[in-house]
């Protein structure tokens, strides 16, 4: 029923439009004028519209920045993340300045130079000096951004792995995440997809001496101010481990291991204080991987050393889990 109604309404609308067009064209024929000729009056209206809508758009942008500011991610909870945030501030500031200079110029010119039959444009085909200036200025700005960006990138990606770095594996599959702690020796036991079987869901090679003390977990606990190295694997398709609050992201690719090292510097409890009781650090999947891609998550918890020790002790090692229990 609704379908028929819609069709009828559409037909009526089209018919009305045809009639309106017809009438306007006939009218102009009577007046011996071309309807489609752009008149001075049109130029005037359109020029003013550009001024109004153009500046309206700029106000809309500012309105969004003000109203939605509280929805954006809170400041980073990691050491390198703070540097990324700083770079982001600078780059955003710069592009916003350029945006708020160029757009008004565009809209103002359209208004200012709206045409009149009696006017003539100014013949101005090139000016080498001007062109050099506006090639050089962006070049300088970009050079600064490139240098600053590369420094930040370098620091974020080339982390040193020391004795005190905790090594944790994050394993993605359709559609969940599993973590594996490396245990007392801080060495992950080898793993191979052919060994995935029963409870050994990660395919850990139990003959490897590093494997016995590894621990599997469904959530990841981290110690504040303690560097951690996440190693990523995938079982089936590409996933991407995305931890927006830490400014961490890395693809998980079947057939290879990838990694990302960082140091968390705010506990979950601290974040709950500033962001509200519901706050949790969360790991999302950020590479299309199938139906439940939109719901592939794992909780991360940053806590003090004491809390962490208690939690870790309560997790069973792979040796107990896979070898001793039957």
């Amino acid at each position, binding site marked *: 029923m609704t379908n028929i109604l819609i069709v009828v309404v559409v037909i009526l609308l089209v018919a009305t439009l045809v009639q309106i067009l017809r009438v306007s064209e006939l009218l102009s024929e009577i007046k011996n004028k071309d309807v489609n000729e752009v008149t001075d009056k049109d130029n005037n209206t359109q020029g003013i519209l550009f001024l109004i809508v153009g500046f309206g758009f700029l106000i809309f942008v500012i309105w*969004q920045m003000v109203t939605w500011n509280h929805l954006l991610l809170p400041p980073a909870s990691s050491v390198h993340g703070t540097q990324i945030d700083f770079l982001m501030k600078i780059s955003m500031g710069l592009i916003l300045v350029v945006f708020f200079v160029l757009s008004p110029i565009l809209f103002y010119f*359209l208004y200012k130079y709206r045409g009149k039959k009696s006017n003539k444009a100014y013949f101005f085909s*090139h000016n080498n000096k001007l062109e050099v200036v506006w090639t050089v200025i962006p070049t300088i700005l970009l050079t600064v951004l490139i240098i600053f960006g590369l420094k930040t990138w370098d620091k974020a990606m080339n982390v040193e792995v020391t004795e005190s770095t905790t090594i944790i594996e994050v394993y993605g599959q359709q559609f969940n995440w599993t973590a594996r702690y490396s245990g007392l020796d801080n060495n992950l036991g080898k793993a191979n997809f052919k060994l995935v079987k029963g409870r050994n869901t990660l395919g850990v090679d139990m003959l490897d001496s590093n494997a016995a003390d590894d621990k599997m977990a469904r959530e990841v606990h981290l110690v504040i101010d303690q560097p951690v190295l996440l190693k990523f694997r995938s079982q089936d398709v590409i996933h991407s481990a995305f931890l927006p609050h830490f400014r961490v992201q890395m693809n998980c690719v079947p057939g290879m291991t990838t990694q990302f090292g960082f140091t968390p510097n705010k506990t979950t409890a601290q974040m709950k204080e500033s962001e509200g009781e519901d706050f949790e650090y969360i790991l999302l999947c950020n590479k299309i991987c199938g139906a439940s891609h939109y719901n592939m998550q794992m909780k991360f918890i940053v806590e003090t050393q004491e809390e962490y020790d208690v939690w870790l002790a309560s997790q069973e090692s792979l040796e107990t889990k896979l070898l001793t229990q039957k």
Partner: protein
Amino acid sequence: MSEHHKENFITKYVFTQDHKMIAKQFLITGMFMAVVGMLMSAIFRVQLANPGETSILYNLLPGAWLNDSGGLNPDKYLALVTMHGTILVFWVLTAGLSGTFANFLIPLQIGARDMASGFLNMLSYWFFFLATVVLLSSLFVETGPASGGWTIYPPLSALPQAIPGSGTGMTLWLISITLFVVGSLLGGLNYIVTILNLRTIGMTMQRLPLTVWALLITAILGVLSFPVLLSCGLLLIFDRSFGTSFYLSDIIINGEVLHNEGGSPILFEHLFWFLGHPEVYIILLPALGIVSEVIAVNSRKPIFGYKAMVGALLLIAFLSFIVWGHHMFMTGMNPFLGSVFTFTTLLIAIPSAVKVFNYLATLWRGNIRFTPAMLFAIGTVSAFITGGLTGIILGDSALDINVHDTYFVVGHFHIVMGLSAIYGMFAGVYHWFPKMYGRMMNKNLGYLHFWGTFICAYGVFFPMHFLGLAGLPRRYYSNSAFPMFDGLSDINELITFFALAGAIFQVFFLFNFFYSIFKGTKATQNPWKSNTLEWTTPVERIHGNWPGELPVVTRWAYDYSKPGADEDFILQTEPLKEGEIEH
């Protein structure tokens, strides 16, 4: 040439070798696909605003996989997003845009009777047509069309067990793209040869209108990069059907252990983006060419810095081949390699900035005439400013860590690529419609179409940046699984509102287009008072373009409002006056 052959219906409208008719075939096919692609986005925007609800929109699209049950499930959502992206990127903005305007404008603006090979040109359209049929047929497959994103990364796209869309739908997608690439290569080679060899007397490279320059560079990009996509797709076909392991290794899917070892999906990404990045310029450059022409004509001024404009196009095209890695910062590539790609990527901002400044300088002290085409050309400039700037964030690998694959990217590329190019396409249609159909499009409907589109489009895409900065990943069926995104539902509803409103404004365009083909007021020979050669041809379409001799060119295309001239335009065929210097 075949201009004296007698034409019947089939050779005139179907298997035609006349470049002007082929251009219209591309245009109409492209418009049809644009409507399909837009409807798809309307459906999934409704889902994002009201998760799980049904919509009458479903009944508008065919295919049992879509409208069997009420709501939109995640598989259908991904299928729609994938087809939407594929259709808009390849069908509308590659074939629809380049196919239409390269075919239409190249011979007319360089003073040639037709393309170098009318036959190859015809084949190019029919390959595209076949590709369209195959792609649309995949909508009727029971398991649905390809659903792994328009970037079809394996293993997701390689394994039918991974998602329903990776079955028959994916096979059809690959066949379709193969046909598509063959079509674009035939077209592209033809465009290049035509521009290099068939320019009329006096039409030196320095006198070419910027449209032709842009179309030439686009064709070169296509010829160099599409074959890589073809090989990339062929290897994927091998992996899917013949048990090879180019892209596959160490996989367990649905409990099944696959034998593949030693391949890498990252190889696919490199091959894909080696096409993929130039592809975004294949989309953008023709639009910039059109816009340069339309802005100059309607400002009644020469385009400012012609040489710099050509130089910028060349530089952008060159750089576009060495930046593909910026789509792969997060694949675990060597950080040093990431640095190199950051460097090359950010360099593209320089020629892009030069283009923007030159457009502004062209408007400065002009005598601007706001035709509907001019409004859309200005829309392109505005979108290019807004969207190009966010590229500076994405191109910086350190910042990309947190915005990669989020809605920030969706906002960026829709504005810089989607809007810039679609506006350019509209500008082209409004501007050359009198040449295509011998009639005018209605001006006031054009105004209405522009303002509705301009306002709604920013209403759709600008807020997406905020979603991205809030951490929202793209390609999510619903945002309700994470409490951290609960606050974003207002933004999503606003976006959906603008998306539906924007779609309605396109009806005015479609109506205006088809109404004017048959009923529009008759066009005069040179309605916009332009300088370029296409306006020296008769209003009636004839095979061979010029009834008598080919025109002889004596000056560049941009002598608007030249001091000393009687009128504010001088045709390219008008000889230089005594003592007059060429610009």
